[in-house]
């Protein structure tokens, strides 16, 4: 019965989504106030229905209702409860349900926190989000219904992909989806702005906090995925340039560009059509990511459920969404005049460099990811593009980006002088270079150029961010959140860059054969292998090794790397033993038994590898602070007062008057916020 309720709620959600996409949109075009007013209730109803549907599927998992095919394929009665819940989104059908649920969460949030937005704009935004929902709900109901029943009912289910039975990965997909789908808000705002024909600063101001939030989730989601790969795959790596990893990086890069370009659009009325294009691009790449993961056109460790038929559906949907928004863009772009002029030395230019570098990176990664597909489609053979390609192109671009990052904060809008900015930062520049050279010399066993450059850049970016906060001349507690947000996000990026540079240059990796009782020396640590014993987990049997780590005779820790077997039909899983720390990780993975008491053991010493994820955490925190800056709320209140007037204007069918109001409101906004950061 419960699965039927879930299924029914899903069908109802589709009906509501159709209403949500048609009526408010038509209403906005024809000034039908009643139809415009349908946007909010339909968006909220959609959320409630999908929440019910999701709850039903979760209940089916908790009860181990194996008459539901999806439940039987992805769970069994031995699985711990937490993984029964995470199994809901552990495979194709359920992850789609999570996708639309999250879409409806965002739409609901927009409908609640929309005080200052004109009702016409809101109707268009929610309608666009409804259309996306229609696509995905149709996809789910037609090709991948999670509530399909089966008969006869099996007594026991299969198991969730053991790779996914991990706390890090239980929350990785929801985070990532919050990010992916979150860009649909900026996308919907961009489309609504184009439809309305009013491409002023208003849409940029509204879209900014939402874009920040989506970006925060995506940052955390990617970091969790990378952290998971690090400790679960047992290769000691944290980024593999795998197509699916790239698919999540692409919207992140464009999203980062979008955050910065929105600032210019809002504050200086420049980059107008470019920002719109970025908003379309960020969401399109999220959709492309979904397509790549779900269709299996590229090989990847992540291609969990691939099916060309489903791929075709997503591709057609992708074509409709991206194609129609780009056609709209082609029609509207020529009318978007960027009125804000700027000179070569200005904050606009700094942000332009940021955007160009980020988009060049995006193009590089996109090309590298799809290149094997292009070559294959042209019948020129099968190839795979590896890390060397990505690293050769991404690193120089990173160099440009991070060099510009330090200057960017100090640049003034419109026009600035080289001498002024340089005078501010020259000591920081010198100091950063000094740190860059001293860290490898003082703390590392040998000097490495790449590491020195990385550390210098990281110091440069973080020191300039700190100096900039100090420059604001106010007590740190009274600074607007967006100042703190920008500074902390920049520092986070610096921490990640430092982590990447040092760990890439100074990691030690050894594959060794160890017998019970044998000791191995590496990087000043001594590893004593105490053999392997069998342990039973709730739903797996593991070979568990014991390694005692000592340094200068002092015991540091005892690690227990495991090789887990989750039963027939699954791959054995590596569970690395990790002693993590701020300054270094010791990482031990169990390889293969080599007869008698001997095993192949993989040992890693990784300096500051954890900084990669600490930095990502800081970036997330920065984005979050910026999204909750008072400024956005203040403007909303400010606009809300105007809203009454707007309504009257609308009823009088004077769109021109409405536009004037908003322009006026924005101009006051610009005047007031001129000192605030990008």
């Amino acid at each position, binding site marked *: 019965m419960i699965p039927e309720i879930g299924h029914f709620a899903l069908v109802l959600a589709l009906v509501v989504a159709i209403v949500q996409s048609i009526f408010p949109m038509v209403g906005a075009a024809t000034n039908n106030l009643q139809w415009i007013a349908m946007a909010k209730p339909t968006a909220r109803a959609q959320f409630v229905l999908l929440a019910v549907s999701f709850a039903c599927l979760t209940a089916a998992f908790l009860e181990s209702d194996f008459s539901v095919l999806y439940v039987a394929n992805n769970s069994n009665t031995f699985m711990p409860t937490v993984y029964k819940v995470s199994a809901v989104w552990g495979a194709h059908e359920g992850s789609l349900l999570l996708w639309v649920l999250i879409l409806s969460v965002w739409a609901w949030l927009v409908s609640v926190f929309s005080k200052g937005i004109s009702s016409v704009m809101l109707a268009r935004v929610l309608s666009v989000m409804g259309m996306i929902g229609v696509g995905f709900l149709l996809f789910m109901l037609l090709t991948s219904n999670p509530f399909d029943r089966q008969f006869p009912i099996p007594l026991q289910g299969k198991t969730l992909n053991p790779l996914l039975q991990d706390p890090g990965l239980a929350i990785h997909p929801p985070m990532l989806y919050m990010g992916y789908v979150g860009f649909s808000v900026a996308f919907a705002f961009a489309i609504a702005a184009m439809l309305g024909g009013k491409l002023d600063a208003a849409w940029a101001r509204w879209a900014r906090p939402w874009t920040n939030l989506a970006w925060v989730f995506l940052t955390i989601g990617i970091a969790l995925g990378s952290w998971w790969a690090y400790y679960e795959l047992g290769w000691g790596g944290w980024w593999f340039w795998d197509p699916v990893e790239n698919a999540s990086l692409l919207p992140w890069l464009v999203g980062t560009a979008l955050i910065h370009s929105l600032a210019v659009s809002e504050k200086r009325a420049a980059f107008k059509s470019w920002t719109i294009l970025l908003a379309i691009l960020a969401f399109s790449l999220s959709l492309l990511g979904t397509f790549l993961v779900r269709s299996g056109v590229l090989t990847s460790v992540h291609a969990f459920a691939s099916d060309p038929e489903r791929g075709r559906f997503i591709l057609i949907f992708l074509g409709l969404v991206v194609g129609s928004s780009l056609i709209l863009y082609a029609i509207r*772009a020529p009318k978007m005049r960027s009125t804000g002029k700027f000179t070569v030395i200005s904050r606009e230019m700094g942000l332009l460099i940021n955007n160009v570098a980020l988009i060049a990176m995006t193009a590089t990664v996109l090309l590298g990811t799809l290149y094997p597909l292009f070559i294959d489609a042209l019948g020129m053979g*099968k*190839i795979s593009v590896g890390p060397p390609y990505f690293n050769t192109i991404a690193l120089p671009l990173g160099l440009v980006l991070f060099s510009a990052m330090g200057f960017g904060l100090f640049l003034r809008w419109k026009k600035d002088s080289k001498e002024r900015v340089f005078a501010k930062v020259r000591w920081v520049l010198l100091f950063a270079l000094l740190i860059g050279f001293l860290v490898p010399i003082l703390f590392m066993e040998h000097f490495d150029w790449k590491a020195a450059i990385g550390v210098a850049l990281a110091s440069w970016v973080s020191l300039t961010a700190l100096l900039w906060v100090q420059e604001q001349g106010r007590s740190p507690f009274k600074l607007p959140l967006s100042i703190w947000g920008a500074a902390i996000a920049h520092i986070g990026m610096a921490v990640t860059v430092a982590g990447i540079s040092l760990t890439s240059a100074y990691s030690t990796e050894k594959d060794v054969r160890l017998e019970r009782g044998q000791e191995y020396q590496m990087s000043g640590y001594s590893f004593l292998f105490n053999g392997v014993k069998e342990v039973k987990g709730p739903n797996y049997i593991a070979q568990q090794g014991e390694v005692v780590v000592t340094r200068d005779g002092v015991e540091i820790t005892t690690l227990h790397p495991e090789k887990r077997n989750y039963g027939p039909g699954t791959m054995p899983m590596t569970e690395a033993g990790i002693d993590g720390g701020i300054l270094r990780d010791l990482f031990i993975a169990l390889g293969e038994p080599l007869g008698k008491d001997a095993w192949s053991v993989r040992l890693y010493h990784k300096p500051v590898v954890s900084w990669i994820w600490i930095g990502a955490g800081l970036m997330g925190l920065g984005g979050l602070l910026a999204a909750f800056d008072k400024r956005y709320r203040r403007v909303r209140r400010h606009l809300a007062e105007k809203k009454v007037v707007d309504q009257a204007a609308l009823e009088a069918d004077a769109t021109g008057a409405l536009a004037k109001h908003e322009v006026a409101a924005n101009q006051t906004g610009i005047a007031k916020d001129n000192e605030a950061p990008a």
Partner: protein
Amino acid sequence: MKLSALIPLGIFAVLAVFLYKGLELKPREVPSPFIGKPVPEFTLPKLMVDGKTISPNDLKGKVWMLNVFASWCVSCRAEHDVLTRFIKAEKVPVLGLNYKDQPKDAKEWLAALGNPYQHIAVDLEGSVGIDLGVYGVPETFVIDKQGIIRHKQTGPVFDETVRNDLLPLILKLREEKS
């Protein structure tokens, strides 16, 4: 309408065509990520000699091939003749990895068709196959003197494959220092 505003649409259209074509391709045949990595460590019982084991270390210092095969695999039968001729002509040491197969069936199969392998390892559970990232049988790996995987052939070896890929690579690898 300005022409430049159509550029994004044009790029997307080209991309969409490729993605659509991509749906009909078999991406699984893309070379494995194991290329450039050392052969995974393993020690497996030998098929033909009871009580003896074989490990990749035994072949260190030579350019050799690892061929994943099974008696239940039809494509292995197809490549067997080509592979045998190639191995005999070029004197390449080949380790056969008998993948998820019953030793009895494998022995019968080799008795009927001939045994081109220098060593045969029994991977009854397929665990080494997993370490090698085997998608399906047959697969053939070329390994250099340092024990690094340099090439992977997914699917059967044909005369063409030998001529274009395997032979030139093996000749080149033999020139390298060990």
